[in-house]
C-alpha cells in the first residue's frame, strides 16, 4: 500500500512535466538545473561551516526551526497545490487510518521539495560533524528532522483540512499568507536597521542577537536534534538525554495528533459553508448606468464593495501600501529614498490590471447587459478611478514619510510628480491591456501565490510589462523635469508636480477610449480566456 501511495504522488508530481509542451519542458529542465546549482551552493556553504562548529550549530539550529515553520505554514498558504494534503480525497477508500497515515507519510517524502529538503539536510549533517565519526549520527538526526517536519505538517494540515475546504478557510489562508509577507518585510527592515546601527557602532549586534535566539531554540525539538552530535562529542550526557527525549516526544505526540486529526477529518463533514461576512444590505447604492457618470459611479461602488469583502482583491492593496512605506527605506539608505516610491506607485497602477478577469466567468453578467460605448468607457474609467483614489493617498503619504525620515522635503514636488505620473500611466495602460491581453485568474483561491494559470504565464508577463512600460512612457515628461530639478535647481520639481499628474490624467482619459473599443470588439474572446480560471 505504501508503494501505491508513493507511486500516486510521483505520478502527480511528474504529470505536469509529461503534459508540458517541448518548450515548457525545456524551461522546466533549465529551472531544475538552476535549483540544483542553488542547492549545491547551500550544501557547499554548510560544508564550509564544518570548520567552525559553534557557527555551524547556530546556523543548523536556526535552519531546522525555520524548516519546521515552513512545513507547517506551507499548506495554509498553498492548500491544494499538493493533492495528497487533503485527507478527504481518501475518505472513500477502504483503508484503516494507520495504513493511510503510513502511505501519506511516504507520499510526503516524494517530490521536488522533499528531495531539496533532504539534500540541504545532508549538507547540515556534514556541517554538524566535527569528526567524520559523528556523520552517521548527524545524518540520523537530519532524517528524524525531516520526519518530524512531515508529521507535524501533515497533522496541522489534517486538522485544518475542513477549514481549508471552504471559502472562508481559504480566505483565512490568504490573509495569513499576506501577514507572513508583511512580517517578512518588517523583519528584513528590522534586521537591516540593526545591521546598519551595528556597522556604524563597529559591533556585531546582529550576530549576537541571532546567537542568543539560536541558543533558546536549541531546547526545542528541532534545535535539540541539531545539538545531538556536538553534545555527544562533548560527552555532555545530561544535555544529550534531554536532546534525545525532546524530539522523540515530539515525533510521538505529532504522530498521535496526526492520527486523531486524520480520523476526524475522514468522518466529519466540514462545517464552514456559511458566509463569513454576510452583506449588511447598506451598500446597494443608487447610481444608475444611464450616463457615463452614472456608470463610473456604479463601477466604483461595486469595486469598493467587492474589494472590502474579497481578500483576493483586498490583500494586494495592503501589501502595496506596506511596500510603499517600507521598501524605499530598505533599498535606499540615506537621501533620495522618496524617489524609490516610484516602484510601489507603478505597483498600485497594476491594481487596475486584468480587470475583466477578476470575477472569472462572472464577466458574462456584463456581456449580456450592455454593448454600448458609453457604458464600456464608464466601466474602464470606473475601475481606473477606484484605483486612483486610494493610490494617490498612499503615494502622497509614502513620499512625505520618506521625505520627513530622510530630511528630503525639498524633493517632494519632483518625487510626487514622478510617482503620480507613473501610477496614472500604469493605471491607463493596465486598463487597456486588460482588454487586449487578458489572462485567467484562479477562482479556486487555493493559494495566494498561484495566480497564473498554466499556459497563460506569457500573457501574464506581457500584460504586466505593458502596464509598467506604459507608466514609464507617460511619466517621461515628469522625468525630464526631475532631471532638471536634480541638475539645475529643485524649483524644477514643481514643474514635474504639475506636468506629471496632467500627463497621467490625459493618458487615463484617452486610453479609456481605446480600452472601451478593445473590450467591445473582443468580449467573447476575453470570456473564453478568463474562463480557464474557473477550472484552475
Amino acid at each position, binding site marked *: 500500500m505504501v508503494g501505491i501511495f508513493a507511486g500516486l504522488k510521483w505520478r502527480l508530481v511528474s504529470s505536469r512535466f509529461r503534459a508540458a509542451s517541448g518548450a515548457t519542458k525545456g524551461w522546466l529542465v533549465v529551472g531544475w538545473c538552476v535549483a540544483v546549482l542553488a542547492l549545491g551552493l547551500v550544501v557547499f556553504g554548510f560544508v564550509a561551516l564544518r570548520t567552525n562548529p559553534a557557527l555551524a550549530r547556530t546556523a543548523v539550529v536556526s535552519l531546522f526551526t525555520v524548516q519546521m515553520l515552513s512545513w507547517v505554514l506551507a499548506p495554509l498558504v498553498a492548500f491544494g497545490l499538493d493533492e495528497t494534503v487533503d485527507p478527504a480525497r481518501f475518505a472513500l477508500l477502504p483503508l484503516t487510518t494507520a495504513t493511510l497515515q503510513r502511505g501519506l507519510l511516504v507520499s510526503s517524502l516524494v517530490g521536488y521539495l522533499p528531495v531539496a529538503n533532504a539534500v540541504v539536510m545532508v549538507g547540515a549533517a556534514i556541517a554538524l560533524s566535527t569528526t567524520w565519526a559523528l556523520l552517521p549520527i548527524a545524518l540520523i538526526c537530519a532524517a528524524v528532522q525531516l520526519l518530524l517536519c512531515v508529521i507535524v505538517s501533515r497533522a496541522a494540515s489534517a486538522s485544518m483540512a475542513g477549514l481549508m475546504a471552504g471559502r472562508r478557510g481559504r480566505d483565512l489562508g490568504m490573509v495569513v499568507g499576506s501577514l507572513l509577507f508583511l512580517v517578512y518585510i518588517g523583519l528584513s527592515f528590522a534586521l537591516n536597521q540593526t545591521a546598519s546601527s551595528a556597522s556604524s557602532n563597529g559591533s556585531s549586534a546582529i550576530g549576537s542577537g541571532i546567537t542568543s535566539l539560536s541558543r533558546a531554540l536549541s531546547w526545542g525539538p528541532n534545535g535539540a536534534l541539531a545539538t545531538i552530535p556536538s553534545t555527544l562529542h562533548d560527552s555532555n550526557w545530561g544535555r544529550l538525554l534531554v536532546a534525545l527525549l525532546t524530539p522523540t516526544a515530539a515525533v510521538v505526540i505529532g504522530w498521535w495528533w496526526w492520527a486523531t486529526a486524520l480520523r476526524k477529518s475522514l468522518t466529519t463533514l466540514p462545517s464552514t459553508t*456559511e458566509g463569513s461576512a*454576510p452583506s449588511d444590505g447598506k451598500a446597494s*447604492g443608487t*447610481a444608475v*448606468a444611464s450616463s457615463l457618470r452614472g456608470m463610473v459611479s456604479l463601477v466604483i461602488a461595486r469595486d469598493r*464593495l467587492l474589494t472590502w469583502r474579497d481578500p483576493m482583491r483586498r490583500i494586494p492593496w495592503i501589501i502595496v501600501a506596506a511596500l510603499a512605506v517600507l521598501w524605499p527605506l530598505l533599498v535606499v539608505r540615506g537621501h533620495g529614498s522618496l524617489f524609490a516610491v516610484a516602484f510601489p506607485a507603478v505597483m498600485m497602477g497594476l491594481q487596475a490590471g486584468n480587470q475583466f478577469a477578476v470575477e472569472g466567468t462572472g464577466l458574462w453578467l*456584463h456581456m449580456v*447587459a450592455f454593448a454600448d460605448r458609453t457604458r464600456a468607457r464608464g466601466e474602464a474609467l470606473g475601475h481606473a478611478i477606484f484605483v486612483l483614489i486610494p493610490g494617490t493617498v498612499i503615494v502622497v503619504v509614502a513620499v512625505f514619510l520618506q521625505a520627513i525620515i530622510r530630511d528630503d522635503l525639498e524633493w517632494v514636488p519632483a518625487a510626487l510628480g514622478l510617482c503620480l505620473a507613473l501610477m496614472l500611466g500604469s493605471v491607463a495602460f493596465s486598463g487597456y491591456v486588460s482588454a487586449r491581453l487578458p489572462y485567467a485568474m484562479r477562482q479556486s483561491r487555493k493559494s495566494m501565490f498561484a495566480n497564473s494559470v498554466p499556459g497563460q504565464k506569457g500573457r501574464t508577463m506581457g500584460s504586466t510589462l505593458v502596464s509598467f512600460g506604459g507608466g514609464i512612457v507617460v511619466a517621461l515628461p515628469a522625468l525630464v523635469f526631475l532631471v532638471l530639478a536634480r541638475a539645475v535647481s529643485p524649483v524644477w520639481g514643481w514643474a514635474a508636480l504639475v506636468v506629471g499628474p496632467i500627463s497621467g490624467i490625459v493618458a487615463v482619459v484617452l486610453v479609456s477610449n481605446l480600452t472601451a473599443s478593445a473590450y467591445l470588439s473582443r468580449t467573447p474572446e476575453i470570456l473564453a480566456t478568463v474562463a480557464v480560471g474557473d477550472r484552475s
Partner: protein
Amino acid sequence: MSGEATDRIPVTTGTMTAKGSSVTGPGGSALPSYPRPEQLLETVGGAAVAIRGLTKVYDGRPVVDHIDLDVPVGSFFGLVGPNGAGKTTTLSMITGLLRPDEGRIIMAGVDVWADPVTAKTKMGVLPDGLRLFERLSGPELLSYLGRLRGIPADTVTSRAKELIAVLDLDEAGSKLVADYSTGMRKKITLAAALLHAPPILLLDEPLEAVDPVSARVIRTVLSRYTAGGGTVIFSSHVMALVEDLCSHVAVMGHGRIVASGKVAEVRGSAASLDDAFMHLVGADDVAEGGLEWLGSSPA
C-alpha cells in the same frame, strides 16, 4: 425550419453546405449561402428568434454545423440533444457570449451580432456553469445588474423584491451568492434574467441539479412568463420535462438540427418524446449487450 429560398449571396468560403442552400464557389467547392441581410429581417418578422447557417468550428471540427432554426413568438421552445450535441454552443452564440464562425441570428427583429446594443435589451439569459459576482448578496446582485441596465434604482428595488419573493429566495437574506446552493443560484440568475422584462428568455439547463422544490418554482415562473406573451428557449436533457413544458422542440445531434417543430409533430408515432429522441439521435440500442458479469461477481 429551414433557410429561406430567396435571393441569396455567398457569405463565406467554408466547405460546409447549408441545408438546401448551396452555391458553387470560385474554386468549384460548395459554398453556403444566406438571404441578403435586409431581406432576412423582413422574412423572419414573425419569429422570436431566427437562425440561419449558424456555425462554430473548433480545431477543424464543426461543433455547430450550419443550423437553421425559427422560434415562434410566445412559444416554450425546448432545445434537446445528447452531451456534445452543440446545445450550449448554440445558446452561447445566440446570447452573444461566443462569436459564431458563420451565420446570422435575428432576435425580436434585431441582428444579435450586428446590433448587440439593442439585442441585449431583448433577452434575458441564464447560462449553465458560469460564475456570478460571488461576493454580492442576492438583492445586491439584482440591484447592481438592474442599475447597470439603466433601470431607475427605485424600480430595480421593487422588482427585485418581488422576484425574490416569487422565487422563494427570501430566506437567503443577506447571504452572499458564493454560499448559495445550486437551486438558489439558478433562481437568482433567473431573477436577473427577468429583471428588465425582456421579451425572450434563453436558459441553458435551468433545472440541472436543482432540487424538486426549486424546480417547481422555476417551472411555475417560466409558465407565467410564456402565458404573458414571453418566449422561452431552454436546453435540457430531461425529455419528460420538455414534453411536459414545451410547445415546440428542436433535437440536436452532432451539431445539427435533426428535427424540430411542435412537440407532437416531433414525437410522431413514438410512445414518448424520449423514444422519439433516442431514435432521432441514433441511440436506440445504447447500453445493450456486455456486462454479463455484473451482479454475479463475488468481488
